[in-house]
């Protein structure tokens, strides 16, 4: 067991590489990802379908589909624990108590034949948090109130709840043991906008109360602006830009992909006739282009982009992985530096 060097560091991912082996191809889902999370902060992990956001989260939980998905390189240190080499029994003890995950679809992540009270109690009992059932029940009531549900409904089944309420139950289960890290994978994508606002606000309150660090996986930049301290933007299995929420939304220089993402959202405050989306599609992860993985779609592509994989350049804690940034910014020695220093 190693320890992280930084005092506030909670999660440190270095050069993570994950692949999926399918019948006809090796799919390179995550390719050299570096990420650091401090205690109590919220990081928005943004990217389109297939960028490797969920795969990264599943690697931290060690929940990659067995046989198909595997970590082929890099390290994940969570609160000083080496996740990649931890035994399965250790992982079972960690999941739910140190790190929890919320999935996108609240309809499929609850067990339809157990009452919601029992499902919350399950995690408390598994992690031996309380000695007797009375204490467990008291805690279940407490946690239900915390997520804004009436404890009287604990004997009801998931189908008796609406989508937003089900997601509250899922959050209650995830936070029951007060984990240090919560991985929220598109927690509000399946919800209506007024319900989304309620759930996001509740998550924010809970986070402040419990001091949990959150990785919020989303494709919605609006959600990121409202809830996150820091943002990491993913493309084809690597982080191409990271910085504080303020830098990502207000800095002048950006990765061309980030610019494309912002150009794609209709702006409510300005009147624009046409959007400026990114041309083309995400590259096939089983056959990634050489050099910069974004060069096939990049409007600013130059020769070097086609052959040499760019490093991250960091300026004031804002890191951009692009050859065009190399001139002005400080090039980082080695791929592992990542640029998470804030």
């Amino acid at each position, binding site marked *: 067991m190693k320890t992280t060097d930084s005092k506030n560091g909670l999660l440190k991912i270095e050069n993570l590489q994950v692949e999926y082996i399918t019948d006809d191809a090796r799919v390179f889902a995550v390719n050299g990802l570096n990420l650091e999370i401090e205690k109590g902060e919220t990081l928005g992990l943004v990217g389109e379908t297939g960028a490797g956001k969920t795969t990264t989260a599943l690697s931290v939980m060690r929940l990659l589909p067995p046989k198909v998905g595997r970590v082929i390189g890099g390290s994940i240190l969570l609160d000083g624990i080496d996740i990649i080499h931890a035994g399965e029994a250790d992982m079972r003890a960690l999941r739910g108590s140190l790190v929890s995950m919320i999935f996108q679809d609240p309809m499929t992540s609850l067990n339809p034949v157990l009452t919601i009270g029992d499902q919350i109690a399950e995690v408390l009992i598994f992690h031996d948090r309380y000695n007797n059932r009375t204490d467990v029940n008291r805690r279940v009531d407490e946690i239900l109130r915390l997520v804004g549900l009436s404890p009287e409904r604990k004997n009801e089944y998931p189908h008796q709840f609406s989508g937003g309420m089900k997601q509250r139950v899922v959050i209650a289960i995830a936070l029951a043991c007060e984990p240090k890290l919560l991985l929220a994978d598109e927690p509000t994508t399946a919800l*209506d906008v007024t319900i989304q606002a309620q759930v996001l606000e509740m998550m924010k309150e809970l986070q402040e109360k419990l001091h949990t660090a959150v990785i919020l996986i989303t494709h919605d930049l609006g959600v990121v602006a409202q809830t996150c301290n820091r943002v990491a933007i993913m493309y084809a299995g690597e982080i191409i830009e990271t910085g504080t929420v303020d830098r990502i939304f207000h800095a002048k220089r950006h990765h061309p992909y980030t610019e494309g993402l912002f150009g794609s959202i209709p702006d409510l405050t300005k009147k624009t006739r046409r959007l400026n989306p990114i041309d083309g599609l995400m590259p096939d992860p089983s056959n990634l282009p050489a050099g910069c993985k974004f060069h096939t779609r990049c409007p600013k592509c130059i020769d070097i982009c086609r052959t040499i994989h760019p490093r991250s350049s960091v300026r004031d804690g804002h890191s951009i992985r692009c050859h065009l940034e190399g001139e002005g910014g400080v090039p980082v020695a080695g791929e592992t530096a990542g640029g998470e220093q804030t």
Partner: protein
Amino acid sequence: MTNPLVQTIDLKKYFETPRGLLYAVDGVNLSIERGKTLGVVGESGCGKSTLGRVILRLLDATSGAVLYDGEDILRYNGEKMLQMRKKMQIIFQDPYASLNPRMTVSEIIAEPIKVCGAFESKDALEDKVCDLMETVGLADRFVNTYPHELDGGRRQRIGIARALALDPEFIVCDEPVSALDVSIQAQILNLMMDLQEERGLTYMFVTHNLSVVKHISNEIAVMYLGQCVEKAESEELFENPLHPYTKALLAAIPIPDPDIAKRRQAIIRGEVSSPINPAPGCRFAARCPCVTSACTAANVELKEIAPGHFVACLSSVAQQ
């Protein structure tokens, strides 16, 4: 409002359920002018998709009228309706579920033309399909591929090509971009706006995404539990929302700017109540921050507050 292309008059659609009547669409009056886009917004279960389907007669209305060019199409017989259908088409939300997995791209696009017998020869049909694919930005090489081989954005392009196959005048777009990634979504929105300009299409754009609806619509109707609660020019609605529900909806949109996000208004509590046998009065009363006893006493009519700005609310805020 001169000479609208599509107009609904007190349109109602009730579904029978074991627990009583479900008021999916309850007395909606809308009109869409030729070449314009009407955005219909609301949350899940507000009846916006049902409204689109009733207008196209994919579902039979319970009562009311749908005027197309001044004629009530709900009274048309089968033969006349088949001719009518050439003029009105639909693009569905889910490009995964709305395309037949056993048909190739060209077969899917040719299908409506075949059904209406609107082609002279096989060659002409093939040419037409190629033209349509080019129009929506699908490469020739996809002619013989099956939908499962393509990504969501390309599948939605097939859906659009199919809707355009009969050169319609009016297209109901039922959440056409909500299953797509943002960059693909922007490509499809641009395509739809280009097509509208080139062909003078009239859209009814059904969505829950308010930023998209503002971008594409001339006029917006906000629906809540089967009723239209507010209707105005798109700019006006966003600048000066009057109905408490519209305000709540606008306040709930996550704005991609951290500075704006910090000074957000209070968010609305509670959830949409059941559309089965709703209580009389304003449907929004249970969640409304400015509810009065008058709100639950009688049904609230849509009233014109300012020119072109209609709202169904009794509260003093709205009456100004």
